[in-house]
């Protein structure tokens, strides 16, 4: 048993597997699949090799720093794997005044161990936001305000996410205008809808969208905003500034123009354009034990630093590498680095 472990713990395997992992990372980067077999295979070899080495290699017994570094390496790989299985990444667009509902969040990646119910406990109401631009439409600061379920307000943006029950909401470059519409059915029934138009000012020239009314009919809509975002000076996109845009709607091959408050008969009811608002796009991120991952990485590197400080004699007050005397001593300097 011990003999088997010793074979698996061989230091001869380690660099070969590390080079294979480096090559595997390159190949999988080219193929776009980070969990590909050429990454997983050498990584598994390294994990087994390291686990066995930690158990049986006497070298690790002699140096706590080196041992700690390698244990931390193992912990980081384990935590990263666990994190990927439990992670959630998604995005959501929320109009000003709108409340985030779980079914508004689109999943981009979801680990098999991710608890879907947790999403149902995430909610907030979007209040205003502002995005600053320098000359030439270069986006700089973003600040978003939201109201939480308990009534607390939060302001965040750029490097500071909104943290809710371990999930983080980050403001994104994605934001734009929405039309608030009310549909009233001919036979009763009403619904209010928020129609988000493409990201602004990125798609300033293409503000078209569609909305499905409660009776199932699809309506093609366009938003006409009037003035263009200025290129020649600094500018602020502020969700509290009213744009009074016009809504264009295609009905029976005809384009109808609506101002705020105008109504138009549609297939089986009446559509009223209530007002223009703005929406903010967030990316949503959840990765279990993220703080532990950071803690183990840091402890590992510090342990390695400690190991080298001792090994190179810095903590034993011996010269590190050379020293003034080494130059004077001319060529016979071997002993200084031994």
């Amino acid at each position: 048993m011990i003999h088997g472990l010793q074979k698996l713990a061989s230091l001869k395997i380690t660099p070969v597997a590390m080079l294979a992992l480096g090559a595997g990372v390159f190949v999988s980067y080219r193929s776009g699949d980070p969990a590909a077999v050429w990454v997983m295979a050498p990584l598994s070899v390294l994990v087994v090799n390291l686990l066995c080495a930690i158990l049986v290699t006497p070298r690790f017994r002699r140096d706590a720093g080196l041992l700690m570094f390698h244990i931390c390496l193992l912990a980081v790989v384990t935590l990263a794997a666990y994190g990927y299985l439990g992670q959630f990444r998604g995005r959501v667009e929320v109009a000003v005044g709108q409340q985030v509902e779980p079914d508004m969040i689109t999943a981009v990646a979801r680990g098999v161990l991710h608890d879907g119910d947790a999403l149902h406990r995430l909610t907030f109401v979007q209040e205003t936001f502002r995005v600053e631009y320098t000359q030439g439409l270069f986006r700089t600061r973003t600040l978003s305000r939201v109201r939480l379920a308990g009534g607390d307000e939060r302001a965040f943006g750029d490097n500071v996410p909104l943290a809710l029950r371990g999930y983080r909401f980050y403001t994104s470059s994605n934001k734009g205008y929405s039309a608030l519409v009310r549909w009233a059915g001919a036979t009763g029934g009403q619904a209010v809808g928020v129609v988000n138009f493409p990201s602004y000012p990125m798609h300033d020239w293409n503000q078209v969208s569609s909305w499905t009314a409660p009776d199932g009919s699809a309506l093609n809509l366009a938003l006409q905003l009037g003035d263009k975002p200025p290129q020649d000076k600094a500018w602020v996109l502020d969700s509290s500034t009213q744009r009074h845009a016009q809504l264009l709607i295609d009905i029976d091959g005809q384009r109808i123009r609506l101002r705020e408050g105008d109504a138009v008969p549609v297939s089986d009811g009446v559509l009223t354009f209530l007002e223009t608002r703005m929406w903010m796009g967030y990316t949503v991120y959840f990765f279990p034990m993220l703080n532990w991952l950071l803690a183990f990485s840091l402890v590992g590197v510090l342990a390695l630093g400690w190991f080298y400080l001792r090994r190179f004699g810095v903590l034993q007050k011996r010269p590190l590498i050379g020293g003034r005397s080494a130059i004077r001593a001319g060529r016979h300097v071997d002993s200084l680095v031994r």
Partner: protein
Amino acid sequence: MPWVVGGLLCYAAGIAYAVADTVADRPGSRKVVIATVCGAVLLGVAIAERWLRSANGPFYTLFEILLSSLFSLGLMSAVLYWVAPLTRIGAVVTLPVLFMLGLWALNVPSETSPQPATYESVWLWIHVGVGKVFLGVLLVAVGVAGSLLLARTSVLRNVRVASQDALYELSWRLVAVAFVFHSLMLIAGAVWAQDAWGRFWAWDPLETWTLITWLAIGAGLHLRLAYGLSRDYGCAYILGVFVLAFLTFFGVPFSSIAAHKGIL
């Protein structure tokens, strides 16, 4: 710009002294250190002057990154030349690399550009700071390893007589120190990416190549332990790792439009 040219001229003087030492079969002299310090100081002034003018740190455009690297790599080399005089032998390799970096800087557009708001983070400073220490230490390691390879071609005669073993050991020690700083750079970068882009790791080109470099250095340290790499192979390996790190630092970020750019 005059400060940049002045800094480069100092590095050129350092090269001249280093070559003179080599030809005269002397260990690296203090003049090399002084020229390198002067070059770094002048480049530091160039950065400060530009910073005051544009209110942006040297983090964003290719010119800014080359400038800050010229300064910090020069400074790191000078510090190591000072505390560990054995490393001066590598100045014949290290300083020409810096000088070429300088010529490159003089040939790229030097306009300032606004920075994305995500650059307003202390983690950017930590990430870039430890990254520069990493590359600086590795550059000096390459100098030592490179001079050992030159000794094979009898360009550097003094190394032939002196302690090649000691220098070889020294170059790997520097690689080990560089590895610690590379690891710190990876961690600080991941923390910054988490804040700035909402994920700590996304296999983007820069992250992928940095991980490959990190693995290559780790593999090198273990290759030496497990297979006792001969001196020539070991020095060549260090050179290879440096090329990888250099391309990752100065090639990848500027060949992909995705990295670090603001979007409307």
